[in-house]
Each structure stands twice: as C-alpha cells, then as structure tokens.
C-alpha cells in the first residue's frame, strides 16, 4: 500500500515540496507537475532531500509537458524521470492513493 504524491508549487517560493519529501516513504512515488517541476532543478532548495528520498526507494517523476513549457529540458536532476499524462495515469492506478500537495 503506497501513495502517489503530486506537487504543483515551485520549491523556490513554497514549502510544499519540502513538506511532501518529509512524508514520502520507500515504495511511494512523487510526481512533479505544473510549477512543481522547478523542483527537478539541481539548484532547487530541496535537491538534496529529493536525492535522499530517491536513494531510499521513492521513484521521482516530472511531467514532461510542464518541463518543456518552462524550458527545463536538459536541466533536470538525474534522479528525476520524465512522465507524460499517460504515465501520470499509470502511476495513479499502480499506487493505491494520491495525495495532492498544493
């Protein structure tokens, strides 16, 4: 029983991603969407924390259309995989519950 977490706020201006990362557990997945995709940058204030949860078994994704929109292609952390909307659907069906952090 694991949870999909979505985060849609920039970690440079909101503490949303930090809150989410403090709750994520191994087996959970995190999907960065909308302004949340700025959390995929190496310069993100939560980059270290994101790497740490990834290392302990949280899969981390960013929504590709949002990455493209914001000019972040080629700028993301290695730990962050891209997902399209179908991937978002797949994640939300694989995992039991979805917590939206906004």
């Amino acid at each position, binding site marked *: 029983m694991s949870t999909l977490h979505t985060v*849609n706020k920039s970690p440079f201006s909101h503490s949303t991603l930090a809150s989410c990362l403090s709750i994520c557990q191994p087996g959970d997945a995190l999907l960065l*969407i*909308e*302004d949340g995709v700025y959390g995929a940058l190496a310069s993100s204030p939560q980059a270290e924390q994101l790497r740490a949860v990834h290392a302990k078994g949280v899969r981390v994704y960013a*929504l590709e*259309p949002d990455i493209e929109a914001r000019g972040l292609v080629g700028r993301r952390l290695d730990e962050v995989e891209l997902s*399209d*909307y*179908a991937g*978002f*659907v*797949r994640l*939300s*069906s694989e995992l039991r519950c*979805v917590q*939206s952090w*906004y």
Partner: protein
Amino acid sequence: MVSRPLVFSLAVYGAPFSAQASQTAYAFAKALIDVGHRLERVFFYQDGIHAANVLAVPPQDEENLTEAWHSLAREHQVELVVCIAAALRRGLLNGEEAQRYGKPASNLAPGFEIAGLGQLLEAAVTSDRLITFGA
C-alpha cells in the same frame, strides 16, 4: 489499453486561466480515457467551479475548456458536477437557482449539473481512484 480498467473521479479546485490545475485535470481526464480506464465524475469545487461558466470567452487561439469538458462528458458519459455551495458564493447559477435567489440571469454551461457536496464523497466511495487537482 490497460489490462485492468479502473473507475476514476477527479476533484478540480482551480479556475481556468488563473490556475493550471484545470488544464492539468482535463489533460489527465483525456489520458485516462485514452488508455482504457473509465471516468465516472468530475467534481468542481472551490474556484474550479468557474470551468462551468457558459459566459467565458477565452482568447481566440486558446482552447475553450468549458466546451472541451462538455464534449468529453458527452462522448464518454462523464458526470460534470459543480458544488452548489461553492457555485452560489461565486456567482454560478442554473436557471432554478437564479429564480430562487431573484437573480436576473443564469450562467451554468450545458453539460454541467449543480449538486451538493455529498457528490464529492460519493465519488470517493464509488470510484477506485479520486485525484485532486488543487490550485
């Protein structure tokens, strides 16, 4: 197509244009139907209710989200439910409510229905997945 189709409902809390949430919700809705899941209900609450305003005139080169939801609902038998309490406060009325409150017009778009907050809970209970799109 997915091997095990699920029933989804969505909760949409952001207004078109002001928040990307409503756009993301719509893209998600299309994607889940495309891969073979079923979309039971979209519940519009908080500022999400503005998606059901028939009077919106989006810029010409942009999608009309209100009409897009309506088409999706018609083609795939999706319930588009607007929370009545959230709608009244924000000035979104069907004909009946307009009459009840002595208002000069109504502005609920075709394809959407106004109902109580219980419909959100019911969606949570009867669907396999409830996904929130917050603003």
